[in-house]
């Protein structure tokens, strides 16, 4: 299990940031991701692997409306 934006979410083996965004259906283009407080560059989304127990922040930079 991992934490995504403070809420539990099932972890899967080999889960990348990109895969997590797909599973969460986070399709908005301006998302910043932090794993355990560390920023992940957009170019690393396809390769950066998430580990069981990680705390992830997926911040949609949308102040909108």
């Amino acid at each position, binding site marked *: 299990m991992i934490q995504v934006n403070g809420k539990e979410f099932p972890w899967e083996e080999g889960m990348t940031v990109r895969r997590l965004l797909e599973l969460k*259906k986070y*399709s908005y*283009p301006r998302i910043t991701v932090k794993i355990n407080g560390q920023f992940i560059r957009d170019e690393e989304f396809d390769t950066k692997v998430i580990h069981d127990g990680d705390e992830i922040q997926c911040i949609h930079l949308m*102040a909108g*409306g």
Partner: protein
Amino acid sequence: MILKEYKYELGKIERGYNNRSLYINVGDNTIKEKEVTQFMKDKFIGGKGFGLWYLWNAVTPETRWNDPENEIVIAHGPVAGITQYPGSGKSLVVTLSPLTHMPMDSNVGGYFGPYLKFSGFDALELQGKAENDVIIYIDGNKGIVQIMESDIEEKDSHLLSEILTERFAKDEEDKKNISVVSTGSAADHTLIGLLNFSFYDIRRKGVRLKQAGRGGIGTVFRDKKIKALVVRFEGTKGNLNNPADQGKINRTGIKLHKEICDLDDKQNRMRKIGTANIIEVMDEYDLLPTHNYKFGCHKDTYKISSDKFQARVTQGLPDGCWYGCSLSCAKAADDFIPETGPYKGQKVIVDGPEYENAAALGSNIGVFDRDGVLELNFYCDTYGVDTISFGTLTAFVMECYENGILDKEKTGGLELYFGNKEAALELLHQMSRGEGFGKIAGLGIRRMKKIFIEEYGADADFLNDIGMEQKGLEYSEYLSKESLAQQGGYGLTNKGPQHDEAWLIFMDMVNNQIPTFEDKAEALHYFPMFRTWFGLMGLCKLPWNDIAPEDNKYTDEPAKIPEHVQNYVDIFNGVTGKNIDKHELIVQSERVYNFQRIFNIRMGYGKRIHDKTPYRSMGPVTEEEYLSRQERYDKQLKELVGFDPEGKTTQEKMAALRKYREEQYERLTDAVYKRRGWTMDGVPTIEKLKEIGMDLPELIEVVKKHL
């Protein structure tokens, strides 16, 4: 025939202010100048602040929207009219609303505001009621103001604006120097009339329209029998504000222009499709209001997605609604041919669609038809109908129709089920003609609820739950059910449920950045104050957060876009020569925000009871809604409410969820009032007014009765 002519001395703007305003009474044809005092500038800054102050002085607690003393005030602000920073040509329009009976403010692009400023005035007050239709003309180069009888038969804005632009321009080249304010035929027959502000598009060789949409301002305009306002000003330049530090403004502007040029295609594509870029995003996050806010997505949303509109909207044009706006979001569909109504078969320009229009005229009424949305958009604009109120009230009517509260007999034959584009268009045409069920619908949801309950025997509780209005104003187009903060963003507002005060859905529901009541209250303090500031300046909100610096995400508070906040501090200081910082910026807004709250109280509203919201904005009203997201709601009952849904009926589960969510809203209300320095009944305290320098005798007199 000219009824009155007034000549004035041309002046010079000093650091963003003319230091005078223009007062016109169309009832007795008075035209005069008024001094804009230092007190006004200190306390109210400009724009909406000036509008509220003039309105406060014009009306009493007994004044109704259609009394002659009600005013329409159009004001820009000290920063308005600069051409170096995107989004600097806004006007703010203030009046007593026929929908809410309180002060309404609505912001609008187009050239009228800046041209009014360059003509010598920081605000325009319109009071009184004319006997016959009048046109008001301001020649900002000759120093002449005229009230003249209208000889124009046309009643709709796209024609009125074109005719008057043609009439007052010397030649084709001069058309860009004209701006017309008008409304359309439906403003005569409904309470949801808007004002169209024009600008001449030199590339299209056509008149474009931007809308002061909310709250029925166009209805007040027609009640005064004003056909149009026209301003002409020749000689627009980038330095007409005579700013204190032109270099600072230039540097700040260049920085943002570069950002837009480099990043817009990767971020929000504002230059390609404007605010409609988020249609499918809202759908994917279950936030796109669908079928009267029952749901947040629909399988057919792809038919009205941004790429469908992008393919229809003319590309590659610098679509700014004021000079120098490189964000260029004022998109338009050219050579559109309506299939119905009086302009059927004619080629017209559709200004839009903006996101709100696509959601209101599309998903919320079940019209997943791009050209249907565009046709509704065109007719709303030219008839002078607020697209948001029209969409939201039509969605309400459709749900009533599908629930048997309305039938063909009551609607005069209109089969107003979700998705019936033809019926929605006919409803709109009826509003224009002042006929049939359109006349009832045009009264807005609050009055319709009363009619349906009293005359049709409808269930009052059900209608109050599904009727998406608060304070009398129809909701704008976001689903707030899963975001408590956004429920407050709609409900804990001054003018009603319009998202221009706070839009916190992603911060709250998706990012979970404001989990506690105190966090949400802080956001519902900061963002409404920050956003209020645009309306004091004559600025557009979009260049604040619809583009962001590449490194914004690494800042401490990315949702605030700190670099852009500093830009605004810099351009304000650059124009006025003052030396505010980002904290004083918020205090400037707080003064006007609290003033508006007290104005509401003075009019008999503005208390906690008026901040309550319909349950549809908080949670599932019907079994259909609950069952459509059963897994989500069951999980919340277990994890948040401590209620085991196992073996319970849907009605029992809905009741438990409702009790929880309504309690949450009350707790949020407590926290927000506390943060804003208000009593638990929503009244600004005298201590708070002292703190922000607004302990004016007339305000104390109002609040002390409620403390």
